[in-house]
């Protein structure tokens, strides 16, 4: 069965560039690009939601379905 990928939305207007989502993603999906968080490797995402849960700024959403 093919794996369905989530959509990861980063709201730059809210992102304060704290690195939390990037550092604690277990699959190294995210990276910092300039000031903001950005998606580097969506394929690896396991939809664990850790990034969305920990972002202090409501700036990252993992949309699964």
């Amino acid at each position, binding site marked *: 069965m093919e794996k369905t990928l989530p959509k990861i939305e980063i709201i730059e207007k809210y992102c*304060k560039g704290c690195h939390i989502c990037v550092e604690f993603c277990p699959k190294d999906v995210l990276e910092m690009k300039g000031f903001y968080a950005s998606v580097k490797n969506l394929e690896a995402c396991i939809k664990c939601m850790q990034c969305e*849960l920990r972002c202090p700024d409501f700036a990252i959403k993992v949309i699964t379905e």
Partner: protein
Amino acid sequence: MAFDYDKWIRPGKLPHIWCPGCGHGIVMKGLIRAMETLQLKKEETAVVSGIGCASRLPGYIDCCTLHTAHGRAAAFATGVKMARPEMNVILVGGDGDGTAIGGNHFIHACRRNIDMTYIIMNNYIYGMTGGQFSPCTPTGHKASTTPYGNPDPGFDIAKLAIGAGATFVARGTAFHANQIDKLIVEAIQHKGFSVVEILDDCPTTYGRRNKFKSVIEMMNRLKEVAVPVKAAEKMTAEQLQGKVLTGVLYKDETKPEYTVEYAKVIERAKASK
């Protein structure tokens, strides 16, 4: 599915004022998830705070809110609860607000066992005013007012709450984000005074001064020191050195609740006329 926080945020209020990596935002999200889990009604829910960075939280939440005087959240919240006992009353604030200037209000709310939930964001410092030490700053740590290291021992907020008579006491951390809402849900469901301490981070006024290189280092520290109560049962005193217990630390469902007792006082007074 991504969680819809927007329902509980006042329109146009984001981005919030907290610094990059400040854990207060993580706690606010946990509170919102808890309110949604419990399907609280906005008009029946009051979030009350004192003063401080943590105390800015009610400004963002779309329900009944009260931003009061420094350390006085418990007093104002008690007024709300006594006037409208059917309301869910949630207090939020920092370690400075709650254990320094507001310490007295805190212990007496615990003693009364009034049915409210108090979420204390403990970042070990007065963040808002530039990093003065608080009663929770650990011994030896630096603050703007203790540049050579704090000589005082810090308060253990959870023990203080238990000692003063709170009937539900829990502790979590800003790192363990998915536990925050679960603890708050249990606390709100508890009939009596419930305290949820969240070990938090203030990278701006505490982290830098105490040689934390980044927010990530502060988060890793929270990850390292936290030990769930269940896991601690199997650990030796030596292994528990320097650790902090997390989870539900205390629960007593037998103690009378204040608004119920006060209603009886009203009945007695009416009957005696």
